């Protein structure tokens, strides 16, 4: 029995049926970690004994009938910006290298109540600022498909761990694409829920108005099952929303008949890699052939999303990260002269280059004389972007496009030019600005064998539509290789071959 080939939902069913135990599942994951972790470096913090002990405890509770949750016994990896009580939470920063939270994030509590067992904390870009997981203070994570490439970011450790079989599913956070983009690069499913669906309590904030926690999973049914557990209103998070429609697994029907899908022309212009374009359009075609009504449209303002995002996110980050000052927790410079020198030395030594870059930018755009020109202007454009999506969703149930312009870049390629790295977020970022739900589903690989993801975006609170379409596509596509098993079918169904598809010669809905 190869437990690692099970999805999270399958594993939970097997454990429920007594065919497997939580301990066996944890052992399987740990042996995979022993095999791969040295190369991949998906985890920042991992305590094998504690993980096994937790699995044993869970198994006892399952056997005693005390634990019947949907994820009972399933090992999970948690992104290291989610607080875990008693377990080091670093945000992949030197600043929090010794920080042990006294409480757990509500999302983590929800998972534990559903019976999931925490393996450890996954690597990420420092404080979630980055798109490659290379800004981590604990070394970069490598793409399990090719160790010379990045896994994406910022939830790169979570995506790599799922892809490599180092966990059954993982939690990530998405501020501008940080779940969807690494999911796309690592060939796994990643979903960013509607803003307010998952409590942010215990998520170390980056851009508070944009941050959402979400699942990274092997397939769409797992994604629905995990989201169902995560989505609860939380009195500790003022921006958390009460929702009645959180039975997401009920949306898993392979039927897109009559579903109206819009494809923004602006998402297929200059800068999009031909192989990515081809794979994404093939996915659209598959849905069209299954009965969806697919058409192109103009989604305006696309190019303004990145400057809007970086203004807002940097401003919020500059304030959110002020609390790291060497007084209450975390790193403190050893030598300093007076209070302000303590602050400056602690922060200069404790933060990495990318974090400092964004703090500087954020402090500047909020500073006296610039607030209206930059920050307030960005909030206005944000309102316009949201309106553009509202207009689109008056006509379409879903928007379909790429997740990222390319497949995973080579290690070291991105950091040299921050602005270029930021441009890679073009298709994911506006979703956060508009608070919408979106999912990344693997839809192919490039010639080098690196995965490609297709992004589906739904109107707010329409996760069910999103999951239904994603599930339908996944069913049409067939199994997508997790890199643990390179021999299993890895080609999307009905994929066009021979030449690059272009949006102009792909006709939909007729």
């Amino acid at each position, binding site marked *: 029995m190869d437990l690692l080939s099970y999805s999270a939902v399958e594993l939970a069913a097997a454990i429920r049926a007594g065919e497997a135990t939580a301990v066996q599942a944890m052992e399987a994951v740990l042996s995979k970690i022993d095999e791969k972790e040295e190369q991949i470096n998906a985890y920042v913090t991992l305590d094998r004994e504690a993980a096994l002990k937790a699995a044993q405890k869970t198994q006892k509770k399952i056997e005693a009938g005390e634990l019947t949750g949907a994820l009972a016994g399933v090992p999970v990896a948690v992104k290291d910006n989610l607080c875990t009580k008693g377990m080091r939470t670093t945000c992949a920063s030197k600043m929090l290298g010794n920080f042990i939270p006294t409480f757990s994030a509500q999302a983590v509590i929800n998972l534990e109540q559903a019976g999931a067992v925490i393996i450890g904390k996954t690597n990420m870009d420092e404080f979630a600022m980055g798109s490659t997981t290379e800004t981590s203070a604990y070394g970069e994570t490598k793409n399990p498909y090719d160790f010379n490439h990045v896994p994406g970011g910022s939830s790169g450790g979570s995506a790599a761990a799922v892809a490599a079989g180092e966990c059954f599913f993982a939690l990530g956070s998405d501020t501008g694409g940080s779940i969807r983009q690494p999911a796309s690069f690592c060939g796994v499913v990643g979903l960013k829920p509607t803003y307010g669906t998952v409590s942010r309590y*215990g998520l170390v904030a980056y*851009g508070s108005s944009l941050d959402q926690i979400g699942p990274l999973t092997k397939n769409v049914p797992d994604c629905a099952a995990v989201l169902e557990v995560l989505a609860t209103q939380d009195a500790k998070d*003022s921006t958390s929303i009460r929702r009645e429609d959180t039975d997401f697994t009920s949306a898993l029907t392979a039927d897109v008949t009559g579903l109206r899908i819009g494809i923004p022309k602006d998402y297929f212009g200059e800068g999009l890699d031909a192989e990515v374009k081809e794979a994404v359009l093939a996915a659209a075609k598959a849905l069209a052939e299954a009965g969806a009504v697919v058409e192109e449209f103009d989604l305006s303002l696309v190019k303004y999303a990145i400057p809007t995002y970086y203004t807002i996110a940097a401003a919020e980050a500059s304030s959110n990260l002020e609390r790291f000052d060497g007084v209450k927790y975390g790193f403190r410079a050893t030598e300093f002269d007076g209070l302000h020198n303590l602050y400056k030395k602690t922060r200069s030594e404790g933060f990495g280059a990318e974090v400092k870059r964004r703090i500087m930018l954020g402090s500047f755009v909020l500073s*006296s004389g610039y*607030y209206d020109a930059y920050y307030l202007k960005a909030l206005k454009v944000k309102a316009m972007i949201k309106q553009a999506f509202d207009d689109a969703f008056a006509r379409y149930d879903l928007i379909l496009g790429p997740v990222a312009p390319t497949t995973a870049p080579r290690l070291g390629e991105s950091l040299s030019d921050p602005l270029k790295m930021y441009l890679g977020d073009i298709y994911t970022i506006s979703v956060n600005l508009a608070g919408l739900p979106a999912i990344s589903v693997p839809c192919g690989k490039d010639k080098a064998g690196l995965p490609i993801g297709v992004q589906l975006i739904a109107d707010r609170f329409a996760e069910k539509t999103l999951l239904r379409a994603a599930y339908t596509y996944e069913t049409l596509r067939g199994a997508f290789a997790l890199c643990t098993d390179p021999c299993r079918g890895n080609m999307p169904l009905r994929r066009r071959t021979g030449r690059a598809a272009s949006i102009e010669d792909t006709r939909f809905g007729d």
Partner: protein
Amino acid sequence: MSNTKQYETVIGLEVHVELATKTKIFCGCSTEFGGASNTHTCPVCTGMPGTLPVLNKQVVEYALAVGLATNCAITQHCKFDRKNYFYPDNPQNYQISQLYLPICRNGFVEIETAAGKKRVGIHEIHMEEDAGKLVHDEWEDCSLVDYNRSGVPLIEIVSEPDMRSAEEVIAYLEKLRMTIQYLGASDCKLNEGSMRADVNLSVREVGAEAFGTRTEMKNLNSFRAITHAIENERERQIELLESGQQVIQETRRWDDNKEYSYAMRSKEDAQDYRYFPDPDLTPVFISDAWLDAVRKSLPEFREEKMARYREEFDIPEYDIGILTDTKHMADLFEDTVAICNQPKKVSNWLMGETLRLLKENGMDAQDIRFSPANLAKLIALVDSKAININVAKDVFAVMFDKDVDPEKYVEEKGLKTVNDEGALRRTIEEVIAANPQSVEDYRNGKEKAIGFLVGQTMKAMKGKADPALVNRILKELL
């Protein structure tokens, strides 16, 4: 030193008031004063990573009440902003406050000084969180941070620069304090820091239109300190101007022991707070219905109360002033009168013994412990001549201390006046027999001598006799 020019002082105040909520503004920690260091803290009010604020509704209720009581326009859609600055008493290194849409604006209060009545404008009132406390270590070169006060709710009341003297400032502060105490929104104790005033002051030549450069004075913990700081800063600024120098816009700290102020300046203080709307808190919408409900629940304020007392109760104007000075005293008065219907007698007890004991014990009206019911019982005991006034005062002292039931106390301690005339007569006969000289004096026309005999009788009765009755029997027997 005589100045060549005549100057006018222009003063505006920023008053911080700690609200009387049970919990902090954004978390469920107690606001109780005192308590060992950092015991009233949680991850939220110590700025732990990942924590989020949730607004205490009572804070909005109190802020609304103060705004309505000070004639403000209410911002029905208001929200919170972050004020960013690094200081160790501020655990997040930003303070959650209101800049862009404060809850109240454009109000006023009326003050009265020797110069007459005057309106002081209120620019705005906003809600915010208090900072923690810094303790300066006596032995080592360090400061220590206690976050027990971090997150205690405050309102900041920002006046217009409408005041011209320390006298007006004190009148304004007293008016605010009275109003807020009447609302029960704060106890407003300057010495405990639940009311704090920062003074913005500038001077200009009499008749000038433009304001001079102002300074802001902090750390003023009493009316006395405020008065001295205002006089001191006025003189300092005039001296600067007279000697051809300029006033620098700066924040100064008052040292009450040395009676002078010094600039709190550092090149690390950029004074650029980078305010922006707090993304962790949702906007507050105050509906008309909510506003009406708060308006209806406003208490009767002092002026209205005084007018009503003049109508309803036959008591002197002086008494009315004192009784309505605090809501607690006024409530005590009204509640007791409602039971016994004897306004003058209730007023006498409050104006006399109560004030005397408060002063003796260094207490405020809000510290009074005895109940209206017990005060009414005490008055009834005196009325019915069950005890005489001297015994009553002794009983009151115990009541003031422990809120005992005076009926039970008098019973238990056997303090009731002896109304058995036979027994009293026998005692008086003994006193007459034992004091022939006084009897002789009285009979010879020395009216005063009877006082001595009354005293002797009271002494023999251990105070438990009705002096009027003693007088009557004595005269009869003599």
